[in-house]
């Protein structure tokens, strides 16, 4: 029997036997009070503390179990991590581990060039590659996750039909386990999976459609009508243009702009047009949201430009794609797709949780503030910037910190979806620690511990940096 087993046996006997004796000598229980007795027995150490030290002893007895577990399984490992990182070998007995000083650290830092992980030692390469990937992942993931969570929280906080249903639906993926999530997405993203199939079908349908006689005309006219309706609705209100319609209009404008690709005339490819279009659209929305006096004229100008562009393309050949080639989403190297899907799946599975936290923050904003704003004829966008955003900022900071710490620790999804591949494109730092310590024939606990310590330093720096930047909002 292990030491822990023996200890728990002794404690158990003392607790149950001693407690029963102690209680029965002091209190009488009727047969119907057996549940009472059971609960008193459960709290026997607390009762004992109260009778020995009075009420002042009770909080310590109450804290004891929790702090014991924290002590042994959180704080002790924290300290132990430093010790282990200075030892070598593969022994799991702490006393058999030879002291190697800073060898584990120097192995990680043994690089010819600090700008290229490939010039490092094996440990160094693995660590820095993992760190670089993780930092990139965090840098993309945290803003994406927070933006998605905030947007969703704002939408489900509106007074919509079936509010409870929407909220619940967005939370559902949070409850799924990483293995299930990975299996689901592996299945969907398989080379012959439903996504490729759907994309192929869609391409086929679009190409077939655009081949039909008169399609160009009909599509152009329909789109022109849509654009006109959106711009008319934007400008309909007597005072300032409506933001929501302006948003719709901007989306349509971006679509036309991208398709027409005016930049192609000066020798660019299609992609820069998309970015320019997005920038213009965002600028339009910003102008409208701040109720800029020129907004009205800009909307009219954009409508004219969009019409002109529409006439130049008339949807000519826009929908004739190449035959769609199925992509092996999670496996093809140097495409960025594995990384993209990692971020997508992570957002998919974690967004609901942060959404709920933000929702709590949004609901804590008293509704009379908005009523007062309405009485002051505040525009919705202004209300968002001046009331919602400042008041939800403390919650947003919490979400930022939580999602930062969570994203840094990404392992399950990567390991199960891509296994760190292709090559090491999605190899994350926790996978480095896990594989160094637990998967090899000669587990390098020391090296893994050194990696953990360095990772802790990076996380701490980031967290404090983030809190420092947002200190005014968070009130910390």
């Amino acid at each position, binding site marked *: 029997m292990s030491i822990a087993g023996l200890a728990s046996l002794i404690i158990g006997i003392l607790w149950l036997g001693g407690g029963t004796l102690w209680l029965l000598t002091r*209190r*009488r229980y*009727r047969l119907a009070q057996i549940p009472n007795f059971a609960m008193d027995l459960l709290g026997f150490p607390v009762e004992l503390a109260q009778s020995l030290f009075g*009420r002042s002893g009770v909080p310590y007895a109450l804290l004891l179990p929790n702090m014991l577990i924290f002590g042994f399984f959180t704080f002790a490992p924290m300290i132990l991590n430093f010790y282990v990182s200075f030892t070598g070998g593969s022994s799991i007995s702490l006393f058999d581990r030879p002291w190697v000083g800073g060898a584990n650290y120097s192995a990680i830092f043994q690089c010819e060039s600090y700008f290229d992980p490939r010039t490092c030692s094996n440990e160094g390469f693995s660590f820095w590659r993992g760190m670089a990937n993780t930092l990139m992942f965090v840098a993309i993931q945290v803003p994406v996750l927070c933006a998605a969570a905030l947007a969703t929280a704002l939408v489900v906080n509106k007074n919509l039909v079936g509010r409870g249903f929407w909220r619940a639906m967005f939370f559902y993926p949070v409850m799924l386990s990483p293995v299930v999530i990975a299996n689901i997405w592996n299945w969907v993203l398989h080379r012959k999976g439903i996504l490729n199939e759907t994309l192929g079908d869609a391409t086929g349908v679009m190409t077939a459609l655009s081949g039909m006689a008169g399609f160009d005309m009909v599509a152009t006219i329909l789109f022109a009508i849509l654009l006109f309706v959106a711009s008319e609705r934007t400008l309909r209100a007597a005072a300032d243009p409506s933001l929501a319609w302006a948003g719709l209009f901007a989306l349509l404008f971006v679509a036309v702009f991208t398709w027409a690709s005016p930049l192609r005339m000066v020798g660019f490819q299609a992609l820069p047009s998309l970015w320019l279009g997005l920038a213009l659209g965002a600028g339009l929305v910003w102008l409208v949201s701040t109720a800029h006096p020129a907004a009205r004229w800009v909307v009219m100008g954009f409508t004219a430009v969009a019409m002109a562009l529409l006439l130049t393309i008339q949807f000519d050949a826009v929908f004739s794609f190449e035959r769609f080639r199925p992509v092996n989403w999670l496996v093809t190297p140097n495409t960025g797709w594995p990384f993209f899907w990692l971020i997508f799946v992570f957002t998919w599975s974690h967004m609901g949780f942060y959404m709920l936290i933000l929702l709590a923050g949004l609901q804590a904003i008293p509704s009379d503030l908005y009523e007062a704003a309405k009485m002051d004829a505040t525009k919705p966008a202004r209300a968002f910037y001046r009331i919602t955003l400042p008041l939800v900022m403390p919650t947003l900071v919490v979400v930022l910190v939580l999602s930062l710490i969570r994203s840094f620790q990404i392992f399950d999804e990567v390991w199960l979806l891509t296994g760190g591949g292709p090559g090491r494109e999605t190899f994350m730092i926790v996978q480095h620690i896990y594989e160094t310590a637990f998967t090899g024939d000669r587990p390098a606990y020391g090296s893994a511990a050194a990696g953990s310590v360095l990772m802790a330093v990076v996380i701490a720096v980031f967290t404090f940096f983030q809190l420092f930047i947002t200190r005014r909002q968070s009130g910390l």
Partner: protein
Amino acid sequence: MTAHALELKHIRKSWGAVQVIHGIDLQIEEGEFVVFVGPSGCGKSTLLRLIAGLDDPSSGDILLQDRRVNSVPASERGLSMVFQSYALYPHMTVRQNLSFGLENLRMAKEEIDRRVDDAATLLQIEMLLARRPGQLSGGQRQRVAIGRAIVREPQIFLFDEPLSNLDAELRLQMRVEIANLHAQLGNTMIYVTHDQVEAMTMANRIVVLRAGKIEQVGKPLELYNRPCNKFVAGFLGAPQMNFLSGNLAPDGTLTMDCGLKMPVRLGETLSAAEKCTLGLRPETIGVSLEGAGDMTVKVQNFEQLGAVTYIYTVFANGETLTVQLAQQIPLRRGQDIGVTFDPTRFHIFAGEGERALLLHGRADA
């Protein structure tokens, strides 16, 4: 000599560096209804919590029936307490609320049922026993809270501002009920309030507290008629006693800043002329509409309540005077009226009001 129901000896209490109770000595006899009254922050609730055993005094002794109970836990002092917020357990029914304490004392089930039913009958809450506190009105919760105190059959009841959460009408009703309850049960009761009306109407004895010290202890009318200082005089009675500042010569001539000059019969000798404060109860002042009287004042405002009339007036030097008349008279703002004073009902306080001076020939009601 029989034991005191409760005796406090040199009680002091500090929270960290802040001392809130500055040495209190008090004896309470069996069957008394004692009210601790004072402005908020005077330490009256703290004192009650010290008696209850919820907090421990920093120094001094608490004796129940001559037994020192400083280290006896709250539950074993044989007291029960009605809290300001009633502190009814929201997740238990009224019956469970009443019986919870008795169960903790390992009382037999039949005895618990008997006591709960008796208390429910006494307080007329039998039909509420199966409900939860959330389903009760304010007055009903108040009764349940009192019921929870009653079932313990304590030596002393402690009430911590129990009526402050009720509306005016209900407060009046509960005031009468608690007084009746005291008459019926005959237990010692200690009642904390900041409302001087509650104190005056319910108490056998009032303890006026200020800033952690006892200002005066006595029967309600004793305190009303012979306040020992300006604070007690001002605290009891509504509308408040009028205070006018002036000088008192050793021969008993009162010279007030407002111009009033009057002789009084001093019960003590003064070595020299001294600053003093004159206290005048609003109901002791007479009014003549023709302007005749000891002084003339200008009417600033008035309230006609039918049975009584309150007239808020001002002297030429800016000091205010409130007059209470038990009759209806025609008044208008800005009017000058004459007021007459009755020297036999004066209160004179030395200096700024630290101490009441002795007067001869007082006509106490």
